[in-house]
């Protein structure tokens, strides 16, 4: 059979294989509810910080962290963004959780910075204001982070 396959046939077949791989890479994602949950939790923590007692903020923060820790191992792999396919682990970079957690750390720092700036500016509800701004950034920026993850996977696999 080798003799029947021309160079053009082989290139066409490999092109088709690469196209199918791209279709799977496009499925690398975290579920949409993850970003919604994060943004919602962020705003709730902002509300607690501005309107609740100190202990409620502490309890809320711990609960938020615990809930995130519970779902993160499965969700942050990026392999189960769609319920219709499980992306192989060697297609998804192992650095995805680090990438997402890094994004969340930056968002946390931004929340603190925005709250301090708003407070210094005399805003009455500085924590809530900061949390709403950052929640919006999470909703917009989270999917963009996954765009970067998919582009990295494409580049890495194309180089193999």
């Amino acid at each position, binding site marked *: *059979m*080798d003799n029947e*396959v021309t160079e053009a046939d*082989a290139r066409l077949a490999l092109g*088709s294989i690469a196209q199918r791989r791209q279709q799977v890479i496009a499925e690398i994602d975290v579920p949409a509810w993850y970003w919604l949950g994060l943004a919602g939790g962020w705003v709730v923590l902002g509300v607690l910080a501005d309107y609740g007692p100190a202990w409620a903020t502490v309890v809320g923060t711990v609960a938020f962290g615990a809930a995130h820790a519970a779902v993160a191992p499965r969700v942050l792999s990026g392999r189960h963004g769609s319920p*219709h*396919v499980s*992306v192989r682990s060697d*297609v998804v970079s192992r650095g995805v959780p680090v990438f997402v957690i890094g994004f969340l750390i930056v968002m946390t720092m931004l929340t603190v910075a925005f709250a301090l700036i708003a407070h210094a500016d005399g805003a009455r509800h500085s924590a809530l204001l900061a949390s709403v701004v950052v929640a919006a950034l999470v909703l917009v920026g989270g999917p963009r982070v996954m765009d970067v993850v998919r582009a990295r996977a494409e580049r890495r696999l194309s180089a193999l």
Partner: protein
Amino acid sequence: MSTAKFDEIIHPSTRLSIVALLASTDWADFSFVRDRLGLSDSALSKQFSILEDAGYVTIDRLVTNRRRRVRVGLTEAGRQAFEGHVAALQSVIAIAESVAP
């Protein structure tokens, strides 16, 4: 590194597309493969039957939340055959490039 070996079962374009899609997954729903390849249910079922008979795919019929799902995945034999086929395709190109002026 896989041994280069053409696989006549995988080589036809539709089956190559199916196997290539599954090669990057642990499993996929039948509907996912159907939609990505733009095939009808019957056409895809026919190709899956051939691949299943060859021992290249597993087909699991599940019931979740009262809905039937068909989940497909490559077997180890299917994965090895695919990798060998890809290596064979690459060798065709490498040979052609080596003799090109």
